[in-house]
């Protein structure tokens, strides 16, 4: 059957009954336009769909299957264990500790980085001399590859030759072992702040979208800078802040920065991460690459996937009442 074969059924009350062909032609033309649009749509999205299937769906399905086995990549006697890996996970104290640390890291690092990024955005949104230079300098760390940043942080915070302890010594304070427990967690947080330029750029774009009239009206009404920021800027920025919160939470639970701060530069580095930086992804990494437990590590990843979905849902749930959309998000539905 083809589009051209479609003939409108005779309708005594409609134009077809009059014998005039024009509406039929119009309909056919409309139909072929729709066809072309559909075809174009599918052609444009098909690379993504194929890529998504190959690089996301297939690996996820494979990982799900692995999570029901004791597969280690090499041994001949791996077997199907059903939910055994998931049951083991429930009683694995190392996994629970790592998960707890990751939660703590997320609730610390996300507000910290958003606050820092927003603060920087407010600063460079003001009419300053050489504002562009400041914006560039503040954004620059965000474009440095994490591996490079990891190496730099290791050198700066090395106990015996790092610049950080050099500064402490100037003030008569003894050197600290920054890269080991209990200080390693602070260096990890500093790496998060190091990348606050990303948040700054997005917040800056949001700030520039805030109508000036609202600020002027608030000033006329006698509102101070803090009140204006709290009652006008923050509500109008709330969709941006929500986006940053969601992506920040996801990024923080998936961070591999502790690995880049660990001694050595290979997969074996995961074996020497200080316990305070031993986050959930480090446990996954260690189970895959140090312990060779592909099945168990895949179960850990699937649990993480579900937890991220839950965490994202919770963020949306608890922020739905405080996020202000300048444009009604329901309008286009």
């Amino acid at each position, binding site marked *: *059957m*083809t*589009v*051209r074969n479609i003939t409108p059924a005779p309708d005594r009350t409609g134009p077809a009954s009059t014998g005039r062909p024009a509406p039929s032609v119009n309909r056919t033309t409309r139909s*072929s336009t729709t*066809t072309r649009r*559909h*075809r174009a749509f*599918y052609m444009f999205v*098909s690379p993504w*769909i*194929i890529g998504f*299937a*190959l690089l996301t*769906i*297939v690996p996820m399905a494979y990982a799900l299957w692995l999570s029901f086995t*004791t597969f*280690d*990549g*090499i*041994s*001949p*006697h*791996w077997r199907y264990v059903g939910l055994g890996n998931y049951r083991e996970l429930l009683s694995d104290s190392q996994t629970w500790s790592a998960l707890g640390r990751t939660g703590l890291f997320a609730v610390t690092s996300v507000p910290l980085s958003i606050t820092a990024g927003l603060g920087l955005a407010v600063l460079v949104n003001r009419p300053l001399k050489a504002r562009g230079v400041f914006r560039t300098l503040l954004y620059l760390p965000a474009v440095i590859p994490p591996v490079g940043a990891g190496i730099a942080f*290791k*050198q700066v915070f*090395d*106990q*015996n*030759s*790092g610049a950080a*302890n050099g500064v402490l*010594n100037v003030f008569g304070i*003894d*050197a*600290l*072992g920054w*890269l*080991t*427990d209990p200080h390693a967690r602070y260096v990890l947080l500093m790496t998060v702040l190091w990348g606050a330029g990303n948040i700054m750029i997005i917040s800056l774009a949001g700030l520039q979208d805030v109508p000036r009239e609202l600020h002027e009206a608030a000033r006329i009404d006698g509102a101070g800078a803090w009140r204006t920021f709290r009652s006008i800027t923050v509500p109008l920025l709330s969709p941006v802040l929500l986006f940053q919160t969601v992506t920040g939470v996801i990024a923080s639970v998936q961070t591999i920065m502790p690995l880049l701060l*660990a*001694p*050595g*530069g290979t*997969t*074996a580095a*995961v*074996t*020497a*991460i*200080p*316990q305070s930086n*031993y986050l959930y992804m480090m446990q996954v990494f*260690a189970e*895959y*690459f*140090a*312990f*060779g*437990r592909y099945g168990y590590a895949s179960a850990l990843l699937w649990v993480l996937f579900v937890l991220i979905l839950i965490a994202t849902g919770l963020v949306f749930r608890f922020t739905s009442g405080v996020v202000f959309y300048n444009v009604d998000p329901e309008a286009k539905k």
Partner: protein
Amino acid sequence: MRAHAGVPPSRRRFFALAAGGAVGAAAASGCAMRVSTGVSGPGETVTLMVKPDDISSDLLRQAQKDIGVKIATVSYDITKLIAMMTNGNPPDLVRGVGATDAPYFAARDVMEELDPYFARSSVLEVTDLDPVNDLWRYDGRTQGKGPRYGMAKDFSQDSMFWYNTALFDRAGVAHPAELEPVTYEEWLEDAKRLTRRQNGQTTVFGGSYNGVSAPTLLASLAVAAGGSIFSEDFARVDFTAPAARKALNWYVEYGRTGVGPSVLQPDPNGWDGPTYQANRMAMSNSGYWLGGVINADAKLAPLSRLAPAPVFQGGRRVSPCQAGTGLWMPRKARNKDAAWRVFEWFFGEAPARARATGGWGIPTLTSLRPLMPAQEAHHQRVLKVQEAELKHFSVIAFTPYATVDSLSAVFNRFAPAAMRGEMSVDTLARHLNSAMNEQLERGKEQVG
């Protein structure tokens, strides 16, 4: 009914086509993966999975000239190796650490037995093999015996140490005897006296002693103390046994005193070379191979001495190799004859001679030992100590049931607390037993 070209596919049909495309692309990528190994035909191209430093591009070109075999290299990566092996398409030769990888892979039956190849080789004669190559033997139970599965490219006795005479003299510490070992207790005392600190920073490390990895170091120390960390079947560890506990106690004490880098005080470089070369480390637990760095430094070489592996009071004198890095051939390699020709060339011909003269390790063929650097006085001093030490070499068998990284991870999880004095050595020993034995039990089940 055939869909006309002008009709848009239904959603269901579109997703079916997309899935088909995905499967097709996956199949195509599988084919591409096979081609990428470079196995273009018997005797023509051999794929090596190595690290960039293992073989230079000049040597790769030379291989084609010398033996008519083209070598394609794949950067060493355990995940890539597993993917290639799972795909049934492994490299023809793979880099490995004899001391720890050989029993692990051999027990999983993925290595090709090389005895038949050695038997018919005129380049690599078994009588010419240094005993260190026994690290690559495994009889199904114990490392060091049975069929050969690989060969070391060069080696060092990794419990030996180098020392800087200028730093000893500055601290007023007597030099260790040239050929007689110090005890581990003396070594640690010397290290404490040689350490210099200022404002909480260590300006001179008295000594570094971390072995190649914590598990291989502890295994070596326990043998030196007269026992072993492993049970006879290598399926369990016992750090509460007297010799293993003595070894553990010594290493925890080493970490606690902070005389050298450890998991508590990691070296940002990841190895001793730069710190030793900067005259900031008086003793470095590195074998002969560190001479490659030292000999290239005209100021440092005359000041440096190599010393025998220490002993424990009342223990055995042993001087093992904790690495023995070399190559092995996967059982499912596709081009075994050509791979063996490359193996012979790499271990017995031009590359082997180049390594022997370079001073970065002891040759693994005894016939190549005369090529070791001996022109300068410092070369000769080092050679004298090294030749005497070879008599004390022995294979210290490692467990086939766990990777060295997995045991390192367990050690590094618990040891810092003991090194900080927050946990007793006995408690540490119990934690290690519990967590490592869990790993070993799982590994034993996998091996079957």
